[in-house]
Each structure stands twice: as structure tokens, then as C-alpha cells.
């Protein structure tokens, strides 16, 4: 029996942009448009568990030779590939043999997004995609095309911005809700906020 990875590669053809990794570390990089179909197909082929959905923001991913904003004092020793776009979405799937508890296959599907427009939701395939997609929206601001009214999950509704984006400074605090009635010290002003990560320590 051929693996889900090989079957998907054969079926999707040109929508598979590249593949890397072996065995349990297999990764297929797909065209964003092909993701919903690929997920449904992977499920039909036996990937019964959605292990994770996550995102990586490549805003500060600087190709070699220019130094990194996070470490202006160091030059990277390695050549870095230029990212095709800013956000990369990762779907991590597993084919689990429920009777034996053995992992038949693990497969990660990656896709690069145009702007912050994500693919359609995977909720109808795996119900846990609901929370995972809410987290990706909350932390990265990636919109899933059929979830216009998606809700934050870790942060509160009044929070402005998406904290895991690389351009959100780690120290940027927002007003404390419900406590600014004069009795308690006011929330930090902009001047008190710490500068962006690079300038944290000399």
C-alpha cells in the first residue's frame, strides 16, 4: 500500500510545489488553493487525526548577507531561502491505527499565503480545527475564507492586533480593562512601553 504522501503527490500533480523530509517528518508544500481538497483527500486516505494547525510569520526572515534585525551584531552563517510570502500555514496530520495505537504515517502540509488570506476552514473534516483556526486568527490574523465572523480564543475581544506577528512588539501592552477607574494606577502609556525586541538589552 502506498503512503498518503505518495498518493497525494501523484494525485495533486503540479499543486505540490515541493516535498521534503522522510518518514514521520514528511512535508508537502502545496499551493494554497489546493489545501482544502488535499486535506479532504488525506482524510479519505486514512489521516484520521488532525494533530495541529499553526502558522509561521516570515516577516523578519532575512536572506543571508544582510544581518538579522533581531541580531544586528551577527551575520547569519547560513544562506536562507527567500520566503515566497509572509505567512506559512502548517497542517500536521497523522494516520493512527486505532486498534493497535500505532502511527501509520505522519504528514505535514504547508502552504504559503497571499497576504493574510487563508484557505477554507477544515472544521467539517476535523472538529478540532475550529479552535486551532481561531488560535491562528487570534495570534497571526490569518483569515480563513469561510469564517468571516471568527472569534479570538486566547486574547480578549478588545485586544487590538495579533501578538505573534513579528511586527507586534513583545512589550506592547494595551489598557487594562475594567480597572481604569481612577482608584488604580492607569495602564502604561506608550512612553513606558518597552521598545521592540532587538533593543531589549545593550
Amino acid at each position, binding site marked *: 500500500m502506498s503512503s498518503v504522501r505518495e498518493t497525494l503527490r501523484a494525485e495533486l500533480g503540479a499543486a505540490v510545489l515541493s516535498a521534503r523530509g522522510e518518514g514521520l517528518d514528511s512535508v508537502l508544500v502545496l499551493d494554497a488553493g489546493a489545501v482544502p481538497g488535499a486535506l479532504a483527500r488525506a482524510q479519505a486516505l486514512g489521516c484520521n487525526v488532525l494533530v*495541529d494547525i499553526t502558522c509561521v510569520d516570515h516577516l523578519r526572515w532575512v536572506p543571508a548577507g544582510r544581518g538579522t534585525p533581531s541580531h544586528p551584531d551577527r551575520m*547569519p552563517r547560513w544562506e536562507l531561502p527567500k520566503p515566497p510570502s509572509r505567512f506559512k500555514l502548517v497542517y500536521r496530520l497523522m494516520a493512527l491505527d486505532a486498534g493497535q495505537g*500505532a502511527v501509520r504515517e505522519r504528514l505535514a502540509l504547508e502552504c504559503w499565503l497571499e497576504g493574510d488570506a487563508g484557505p477554507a476552514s477544515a472544521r467539517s473534516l476535523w472538529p478540532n480545527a475550529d479552535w486551532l483556526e481561531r488560535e491562528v486568527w487570534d495570534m497571526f490574523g490569518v483569515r480563513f475564507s469561510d469564517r468571516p465572523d471568527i472569534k479570538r480564543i486566547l486574547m480578549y475581544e478588545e485586544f487590538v492586533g495579533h501578538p505573534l506577528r513579528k511586527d507586534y512588539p513583545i512589550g506592547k501592552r494595551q489598557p487594562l480593562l475594567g480597572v481604569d477607574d481612577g482608584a488604580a494606577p492607569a495602564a502604561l502609556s506608550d512612553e513606558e512601553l518597552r521598545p521592540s525586541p532587538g533593543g531589549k538589552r545593550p
Partner: protein
Amino acid sequence: MNATATQRRTYLLNMGPSHPAMHGVIRLLLELDGERVVKADAEIGYLHRAFEKQAEDDCWNNVIPYTDRLNYVSPLINNVGYCLAVEKLCGIETPERCQYLRVIASEISRVTDHLTCVGASAMELGAFTVFLYLMQAREVLYFCVDKLTGARITTSYTRIGGVKADLPEGFETMVHDAFRKVREAVRESDALLTRNRIFMDRMRGIGVLPRATALAYGVTGPLLRAAGVPYDLRRAQPYLVYDKLDFEVPVGSQGDNFDRYLVRLAEIEQGMRIVEQCLRDMPAGPVRSSDPRLLDAAEMADAGKRGETGRLSGSDADGDPTLEGTGERFKAGISAPAPDAVLPTKERAYGSIEGLMNHFELVMWGRGVTPPPGETYFAVEAGNGELGFHVVSDGSRRPYRVRVRPPCFFNMAALHTMLEGGTVADIIATFGSINMIAGELDR
């Protein structure tokens, strides 16, 4: 007044985020029809401490203390998981003794995790005695953890490429004594609970999570095993030395609260068995002898500062017992031979310029461990299931991204299926058996 029709309406009840039976901060929005739960909606994020952002802001080794505080009931497993993920990225293989040490640490942590969960959920059903017994048992294990790592809870025991220190003197006896007390406490709790009519009525057939639902929600760990799927990463994808150890993977059949309780109870015993095997089988460590070449570490540091490095080259440092990973005698057993990730021994750091530079390259601000660019995912079996770390490196001294796949998140996503259709009182029993840990749920 003559009423001819009645109107039925559901009632909205807010439970948490600060509620006595909510160990951890979470809010449940319940839609009730009388005593029955029609709809349950969990609101999480009350303990969001920005772990993932914080990890991007610090060096690779400095992330380890933050991992302690993910699942703070079994911090050692988080330490081990994170380090294994980074080591996979760097291509570092740790020595066998170090792997045994990591297994010992993980399993002691797993036992404390299950003791806490069983104890707390029993207390919420009124069995306060059991709670006190199991907390006392946890306490003796905390003494062992304290002795091994220097801290009771926030351990930070592992390092990238090794562990902080070898086993302290007398650890084996201490662990055997502790396990005797734990077994005694578990036996008593078992006698108090397992055949107890009240306890069984509150647990059996309540909060059922069938196999299909569990798989659909990506639930792992004791919850999935209670539903009859023997999925345990220690078996399915053995890491460290788990393939050399003999242990069982207990499974349930119904997937109800009672099965989860039984699975956890059985796993406590299996965890202790694993530790005992490790202590028996692990490769011998350095012999603690009154070696004439032993030099007090403080004295060695002073001599190094004075430039008297000549007399240091042939001698070993004798440091604080909790620092016994830093001397030549212990280093080979517990750390990988990877100078670009593992600190040099005290003898080398004080005795040679190369060692000193190596030390500085790893500890100075802006320097540190630098994994090659790339990304990887590595998962370990934590107290609540598959704890995965997805680490991305851009070749700099800080992680580009550290994503944690917290097992709790998936268990909590499936919570509503276990609550809906049950009664309000069952929420306490079911919630207790899930073992929600806000630290890893919200990160």
C-alpha cells in the same frame, strides 16, 4: 389567573473563571434546561502568558525555564520535550546515561501529574482523605525532584545536549523509599475509591468520550487510552530509551470518567516501574571517591582568576552536588560531545583559553546555541498526551518560532461533547478527570 400555556426557556449559567472546582482558569458558558446541560462553551485564554512570543525573544537555552511553566504539574516532561526538539534540529545525540536520566525525570513527573489529577478530582467529589493521602505522596516525590534538580516545581533540569546534573548521592534509596510511600498511598486511595458506591456512581458512564469523537478532536493521552486506543508515544514512536524498557500501556473501554481514573491509576504504577528499571539498568556513573586531584570548585575559580591555570589542568572540580554536571568526571555521561551547544567543563573553562572562549560563546548576550536554519517537529508523551514542539530556526541565536502543541488544548476542545446531555453536577466530575492545566492550554 388562569395560565393555559407554559413557556420553556433555557437558562444561561456562567461557571468560572474563578471557581472552586476549576483547577485552572477557564470559563464555561452553560446553557441549561433545568439540571441538564444543553450546550457548553469553554472560554480559554485567561492564563495566556505569551510563551511562544517570549521564546522568540530569548536564546535557545533560555526558553527552558518557560517550558517548566507550561504543564506545571509535570514540568520535567516539558523540559525533555523541548530539548529533544532542539537537539533534533541540531542533530545532537545525547549519551545513554543522559537518556536514562531524562526518562527517570520524566516518569517521576508523570507520577506526580497523575497523583495530582486523581487527588484533586476525588476531592471535588467529596473524597478529601484521598486528596490528602495523594498530596502527601506527591510531596515525597517533590523531595526527590528537589534533590535531583534543585527545585520542587520549576525544575529546568535539561539543557540542550544534556542535563544539568547527574544523580545526587543517595538518590536511588530516596526514590525507592518514596515509591514505597506512593504505592501505599495509591493502595489506600484505591481501596477508598475504586469500589466505592458513591464514587462509582459519579464516575461510571459519565462524561463519555467515545473513540471516534476522541480521534476526531485529536485527543491524546489518558483520555484517548481510556477510550480504548492504546496510543502512547513512548510505544508508538519510542524516543530516548523507552524501547529498552518494559512497561504496559493501560487502556479503558468506555472512555468515561471511571476509565480515565483507572488508566491514570495504572499509569502511576507503570511510571514507577519504569524508574525502577532505569535505576537498575542505566550505565554506571562516575565513582565518587576522594580523588587526590579533586579541587574545590571555588578554589579552582580563584586560581583561574589569578592565572594559575597550570595546576588546574590535571585536577577535577568538586562543586556543589547540584552542580555535578559541570566537572570533567560527570560531563561525559550526561552531556553530548557538542561544544557548540554544551558548556565546557569547569576544568576547561578555567584551565584553558579555548575552554574560556567556548564558555563565553555560549553564555554571553547575543551568543549562544545556534541551530542550523530549518524546522522540525518533535513530540513526547506528556501527562496529558502528545506534547509537540515545532521549532523553527533562522540560524540566529534566538528561536525564530517555537510552537507548542499542548495536549490540553485538544482535550478541552472536546470538553463540550462530554458535558452536553449531562447534568450540572457531572461537570465537576468530568472536568476533574480531564486534568486541564491552564499553563499549557493558554501558554
